[in-house]
């Protein structure tokens, strides 16, 4: 007992008023303000819309959602906890536990969709499918291998960012597609809440990766970059096959792939890296982009032509004007 006390590092209480990294508090605040539960979304309003989907479209949707559930389950129980031992600050640990919990909320919310819209038998069949689908299993295993204890902490972060910012998107595409056709719009609202969370997770873990690696020797940084791009190639290859299997019958595969390229580039940017896919391969269907960020003002001057510019004039503003 006495030995135990002496060998253990001094247990320290977390002090949020002494920050080593401002980003921890910034992200903590954003995550906690954005907290939500699936009960907040009126999924039952989609019952009639669900009935308008053809049986194979319903099956595809359930399968896509079980695939997403699998990734959320991994991130909840393995991925985010695996980053805890590498945390640089106590506040980072707190943020990671928040991330882990929200992944459980995401995984749980797909079951809310199922219980609201689907038959138990169809859902059970889809969960079996998720255990047997070779592409889904392959990507899950590839990521889990990187999370294993004893691995390189920076490689764990790379794998985690790719899961958060890339691997979800072959699945997220479908509810955005339905939403762009005015179907399952409440389910799409729920998915947008998940997308919003995953964006912060990918950003934060990518940021911590950049902080953790900025002082490494050039050779080590180059090796990590090579690892990241090669893992991205490997994951993309699996995702392309997964996408073909799921979406070929709807004729959407090429559309989904453009979305994958676009998100792969954003995942790499979260790590501080340049894009992999050229812009010409990332021309996402505008209807999908609009479904991602509905109501966001898209007009700007540099994309338009021949507009006249408004010249600014001085206006008195105070801090409180800015809605902080």
């Amino acid at each position, binding site marked *: 007992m006495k030995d135990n006390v002496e060998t253990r590092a001094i247990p320290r209480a977390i002090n949020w008023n002494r920050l080593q990294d401002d980003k921890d508090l910034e992200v903590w605040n954003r995550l906690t303000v954005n907290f939500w539960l699936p009960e907040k979304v009126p999924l039952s309003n989609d019952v009639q819309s669900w009935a308008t989907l053809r049986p194979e479209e319903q099956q595809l949707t359930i399968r896509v959602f079980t695939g997403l559930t699998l990734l959320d389950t991994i991130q909840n129980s393995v991925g985010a906890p695996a980053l805890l031992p590498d945390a640089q600050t106590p506040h980072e640990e707190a943020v990671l536990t928040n991330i882990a919990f929200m992944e459980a909320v995401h995984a749980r919310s797909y079951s809310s969709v199922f219980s609201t819209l689907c038959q138990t038998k169809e859902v059970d069949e889809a969960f079996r499918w998720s255990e047997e689908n070779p592409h889904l299993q392959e990507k899950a295993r590839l990521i889990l291998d990187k999370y294993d204890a004893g691995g390189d902490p920076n490689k764990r972060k790379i794998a985690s960012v790719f899961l958060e910012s890339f691997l979800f998107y072959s699945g997220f595409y479908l509810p955005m597609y339905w939403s762009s056709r005015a179907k399952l719009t409440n389910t799409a609202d729920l998915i947008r809440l998940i997308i919003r969370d995953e964006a912060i997770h990918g950003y934060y873990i990518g940021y911590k990766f950049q902080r953790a690696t900025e002082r490494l020797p050039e050779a080590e940084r180059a090796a990590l970059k090579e690892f990241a791009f090669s893992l991205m190639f490997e994951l993309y290859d699996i995702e392309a096959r997964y996408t073909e299997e799921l979406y070929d019958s709807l004729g959407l595969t090429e559309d989904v792939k453009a979305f994958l390229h676009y998100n792969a580039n954003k995942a790499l940017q979260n790590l501080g890296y340049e894009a992999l896919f050229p812009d010409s391969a990332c021309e996402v269907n505008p209807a999908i982009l609009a479904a991602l960020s509905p109501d966001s003002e898209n007009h700007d001057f*540099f994309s338009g032509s021949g507009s006249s510019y408004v010249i600014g004039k001085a206006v008195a503003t105070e801090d409180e004007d800015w809605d902080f």
Partner: protein
Amino acid sequence: MGGLVYFSSRSGNTARFVADLGLPAERIPQSGETLPTPTAPFILICPTYADGEGRGAVPKQVIRFLNDPSRRALLRGVIAGGNRNFGATYARAGDVIAQKCSVPVLYRFELAGTETDVARVRAGLKKFWGYLPDVPSESIAQGGRSAPLTAAHLEETNARQ
């Protein structure tokens, strides 16, 4: 003479976008009292940090910068960074600044932008000012697509720790 002023947090996305533009630009520091004091008309490039309700979109240092009427008087437009994954609040900082300061939102880009974004903004700025300034190399923001972790980042980190 038109200039660029930008803010970028330690994640460095906006700094990478500005570096890729290859134009002279002044950076609003992440902390501290000393803010740029432009003496000629300029365009502001600003990322978005809104929560789910759109609050807090404009970084505090940018608010401090704009709370000086003499700076606002020279502001001609805003280019906003963001992420479409934040839905309706995508690049919201641009809308807030445009409204408060009666200037146009000139462009929106995601994270560190794409090559297309860089080309469009360069073309847009050239049209806006009527020319693009020649750049003494030392005044170009450091960083860039092929050098994600730069000397500038390290200096910045060392200065803070």
